[in-house]
Every structure is written in C-alpha cells, then in structure tokens.
C-alpha cells in the first residue's frame, strides 16, 4: 500500500511543477485545483489505511471546503482582473 501512496505523491508533483512554471494566472489556478483534490485524496487514503475515522472526516471536509474556497478565489481573481 505504501507504493500506491508514493505513486500518488509523484502524481502530485506534476501540478506543483506546473504551478511554479506557468505565468498565466488561470493555468496556476487549474494546477491549484488539481493539487487541492489530490492532497485531500491522499489524506483520505492515509486515513483509510490507518483506520482513523477522525482523519477521514477531516479529509472529506477538506475535499469539499477546498473546492468551495477555490471557487471563491476564482471569482475574486476574475473581479480583480476585470477592474
């Protein structure tokens, strides 16, 4: 099971590279969306691996709240770039 987690971390490294490399703000936001869902999935996987219910609940909350915060940030950035 540890190798699955290592593969997930490797998949997480690709959007991190993209977020630091690309200059367009929307490409960065896209990379951040990928990172947010991937980190939540990794913590959910770890919680199932350890049979830790508290960690699992927190991971599900992070999964949904992180997406909501991302939408908020996207709207703020759109308003900023239009002004």
């Amino acid at each position, binding site marked *: 099971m540890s190798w699955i987690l290592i593969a997930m971390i490797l998949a997480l490294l*690709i*959007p991190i590279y993209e977020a630091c490399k690309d200059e367009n703000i*929307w490409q960065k936001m*896209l990379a951040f969306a990928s990172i947010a*869902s991937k980190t939540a999935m990794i913590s959910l996987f770890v919680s199932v691996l350890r049979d830790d219910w508290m960690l699992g609940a927190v991971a599900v909350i992070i999964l*949904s709240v992180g997406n909501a915060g991302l939408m908020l940030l996207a709207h703020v950035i759109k308003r900023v770039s239009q002004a």
Partner: protein
Amino acid sequence: MINPLVNLFSYGCIGIGLLFWFWGTAFLPSRRSVLFKLHMLSIADTLGSMAILLGLLLKRPQEWPLLVLAIISLAIWNTVLGYVLAYCSTTEATHD
C-alpha cells in the same frame, strides 16, 4: 479474511484511478488552452479519484459512510468547480 477476487478487483480499481491521475495531469505542462486542460483535468481527477475511492470501498467495507460521502461530494463539487473555473477564465479572456 478478504476474498482474493475482491482484493484483486480493488487493487485494479486503485491502479486504474492512478493511471487516470497520471494521464490527466500529464496534459498540464503542455502549451494548450485553459479549457482543454480543464476538460482533461476534470475528467481525470474526478474519475480517477472515484475509482480510487471505489477500490478503497471494496478493500475496507466497514468505512463505507465516509467513502460514499467522499464520492458524492467529489462528484458534485468537482463538476460545479469545473463550470465556475471555465466561466471565470473565458469571461476574462473575452474581456481582454
């Protein structure tokens, strides 16, 4: 303890999910448009994460409330987020 066929199936689901993750994220560093990448990423992330969660559900069925909640919230929120990101990025592009 656990049925070897179910075990094999769950590992297969997790492997397919990881494959989806790598395939969808591999388009990110390319020089495509935002909408193309968003399309690929929303498909790959949502379906890949759901496949991984399905594999976990087969492997640990006693944690089903958590995993079903995660699958539902993933499906809803990632779809809405895809729409919102596409709307924000395209209106900004036409406004420029």
